[in-house]
């Protein structure tokens, strides 16, 4: 068994018949990083909701526990 092409040799840049997804432009990738960074703020909302749930549980305990 051997490789069709020796290891380390460079083949065609885009093999025939291969559908290669479009690579975003550099600016699009910069925007994507910024978008991902800003999207992280959803974690704050998640933490606030979690805190609220604990608050409800403690209230229930204080009232009826």
């Amino acid at each position, binding site marked *: *068994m051997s*490789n*069709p*092409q020796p*290891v*380390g*040799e*460079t*083949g*065609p*840049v*885009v*093999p025939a018949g*291969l*559908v*290669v*997804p*479009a*690579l*975003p432009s*550099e600016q699009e*990738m*910069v925007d*994507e*990083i*910024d978008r*991902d*960074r*800003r999207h*992280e*703020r*959803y*974690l*704050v*909302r*998640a*933490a606030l*909701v*979690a*805190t609220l*749930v*604990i608050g409800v*549980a403690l209230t*229930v*305990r204080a009232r009826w*526990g």
Partner: protein
Amino acid sequence: MNALTAIGTWVCLAFVIVGAIPVAVGLYQYLLVPIHPWRNHYRKAAPYLPRVSVVVPAWNEGAVVGTSIDRLVRLEYPPDRLRVYVVDDASTDNTPDVVLERAARYPGRVFHLRRENGGQGKAHTLNHGISVLLEQDWTEAVLIMDADVIYRPDSLRKMTRHLADPTVGAVTAYISEGSARPRYLTRFIGYEYVAAQTAARRAQNVLGVLACLAGGAQLHSRENLEAIGGRIDTTTLAEDTVSTILTQLNGRRVIFEPYAVVLAEEPEDIGALWKQRLRWGRGNVQVTKRFAGLWFRPWKHRRLGGFSFGLIWFSVLLLPITMVLSSIGLIGLFLLGSDLAADAFRATWFLAACTYLFITTMTVQIEPRTGRRSWREAVAFPGLISLLVMATAFAPDLFFRTIPGLFGLELTAIGEDCVTLALYAWLSLCMVAAWLTKRVEKTRFGKVLAPTLMYVVGYGPLLCAITFDSYIKEFRGAAQVWDKTEKVGRVMA
């Protein structure tokens, strides 16, 4: 006698406090997660597309490796900057045929490397491939993955963007459970991965130190791989953790990228999960011993040796022991006739209940897709019995009046003592119950009973029981074999 009682009381109380530490540390980790929007690596990330060599270790992976290769060559990445090296570890199935067919289909991009004498484990297989690609100047970064994982199209370039910062040595992705039709156990695993990766590893990003690069998705810069010896550790069962620690000890950062998503196939039965996690657990014990001079010594390494990271590391590693200590402490206080027993029990489980509510509510929001798919497993993660015990922290009469009352019963004094002792012992008994669940799975009625028991006993206790087993196996010096997890190609392609 009074002095002895006092000493016994303090010792028991100390045990209970030690038992509560992992719970508090779990909550602490989750409180770090909402800081991630401000303490992350995105400001130093930039579009960067180095020449990446992908190393895929494969032993009898014919069912899955073809799809993985197909997805790799279709990544949103410049085709002339990506090469795939499948290291065939003397497979006896059709793996060589599948890989060679792909090598012919994608010439110059996919390569088949064959080890004629295999079976030494994943690390040896990886080293065979790494030695080949480091011989060439072409490689600027190395992606180490598993044969069964499927990379989302944008995942690799979302990882490489962090390597634009030369202080970063390695980047890891989020490994998501990827079955098209998950069974109960894979839904538990899916939820666990959200908690253990997208939450816990974000917290570690905040601390600036990572415990482990996921074995199925670790991207190293060439400089980093060469700095850690140009090879993967072969002396432990946790080679990915060793690489992570060595990278950071060498002064480079390790980053978790939550938006680089990789789908993986996970075990569908408890036996296979036990085998996989036992390997991970034993690996962690070995890593702890190997870096024994590092923990809680910030002067050795500011972050790896830091107090926060040490607490996180040992809270996971020693969780089963702390659970047993907690039970011993509570029962001890009860037998000593101390009034502290009930207070300590309520305080422990009250903390556990608050932590559970916070962690569960956050986790299902962090990854809403898994949250929707696995909400039952999220709720039942600690087990329905543990949930009832937690509920006693909020409603102390639950086990003594309410539940017996439902059946028209009233507990006698002896009955109350028995229930009390059972509640105090549950933190230890739950691991025994989890082990029994594994045993039940092998029986004739296992397919029906085991899932039910898993929800009742809990997935968390199962993981603790496996960790406990890993101590025993390490202590006994059991043979260090690489028990591969069987993969059949269930991941959504």
